[in-house]
């Protein structure tokens, strides 16, 4: 697995330590983290639509507004850059909608795990031949 998110050199590792805690916000976590995916709908999506769906998933995971997630750093393919751990989470979550493991990571090209576009392409390949119960 490969990361492509800019390193954290020079910055705090990820949040303020207790000794330097920032002011506590009054209102937090306004969104739920529930992700409900329809496998039939996912299969019918274009690449662009699937990319959008993945961004929605990430907004849910991070409980951030969609626009905030979408505004992140881009990869060379023009879609949002992902760290490989998050990419695996997306693939795993989509796999649950299809009630199966979509891929074996040992057989996945690391390049596919570096962006939303790469993950969308991988998901489309992995789900193309799955027969979804109840689908037209």
């Amino acid at each position, binding site marked *: 697995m490969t990361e492509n998110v800019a390193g954290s050199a*020079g910055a705090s590792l990820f949040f*303020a*330590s207790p000794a330097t805690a920032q002011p*506590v916000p009054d209102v937090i976590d306004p969104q739920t983290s529930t992700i409900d995916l329809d496998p039939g709908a996912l299969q019918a999506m274009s690449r662009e639509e699937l990319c959008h769906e993945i961004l929605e998933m990430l907004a849910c995971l991070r409980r951030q507004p969609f626009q905030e997630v979408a505004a992140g750093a881009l990869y060379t393919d023009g879609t949002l850059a992902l760290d490989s751990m998050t990419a695996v*989470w997306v693939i795993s979550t989509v796999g649950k909608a299809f009630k199966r493991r*979509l891929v074996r990571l*040992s057989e996945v090209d690391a390049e596919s795990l570096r962006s939303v576009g790469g993950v969308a392409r991988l998901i489309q390949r992995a789900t193309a031949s799955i027969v979804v119960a109840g689908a037209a």
Partner: protein
Amino acid sequence: MSDFVAPACNIGEAWLRTLELVHASGGRRTNVLTTIVEPLAPEDPAIRAVVDGVLVPGKRKGTTVHAVETVANTIFPHDLYRDTSLTWSPDLNPEQAAALDSAATDLYDAYSGMLDLLCSADGNKSGTYFGRMVSWPGKKARGVNQLADRVKYLRDQRRAGRQRYNLSDIAIGGEADPAEPERADMGDIGLQVYAPTDRRQRGFPCLVHIDLTLLDGKLSMLAVYRHQYLITKAYGNLLGLARLLEFLAQQTGFEVGELAVLATLADTQEEFASGSRGVAALIDSARSQAAPE
């Protein structure tokens, strides 16, 4: 022979000092202790850049190379953890406490839910480090969540005001699989990442145990590695451990203490670095650019 690396103020300097010491001693040393006094101090960007320059992902000289962040994610997947900007305390209001708890629960659930897929990666057949922490023995969801247990135990200590009065040191070490989990004394249970069934002499798991100690209101960590690969893994390991310590401190309200790593075998990986001269060149490059401590 055992070696003690002079404590450093940040991850990069600690990594570089360890590499320098082991290189000066022939490239391999037993029982090397590395200490970072301020694990959350900003990284030295020059040292980090040198490491990033070496760790371009791919396979070279028989070694699969992962980026620093990838290695760090094996110990703490920080991209799956939301920063609530909250630090736990007994006085936190219910809404804030719930938000902090849900950030941790979402992390545990997200990671546990992808364990099956993660274990399909090369090298993950026996599980993953973080998987072993949140769902022991680490290959399936719904295992023993050692991290959640540690958070609960440490919050209880905080509620009891132990850090204020410093009644005693709290050392946490032992087995993740107590014979009677419901009766286990949390004070004797550490973060276990090594299973009795682990047979491999090299590779996973190199990290075998994490010990937590509470003293004077500060939470410190010692990680034991049986084989520390100083070029391809050590920097990412330190970063991941620092993030894990930060998570535990945030979730329990204690201050971050020091981070120490004991490598039972520390290896400068001369084969990977094109020999002793390659290691020396890497050290020279990093040292010449590092900020003076």
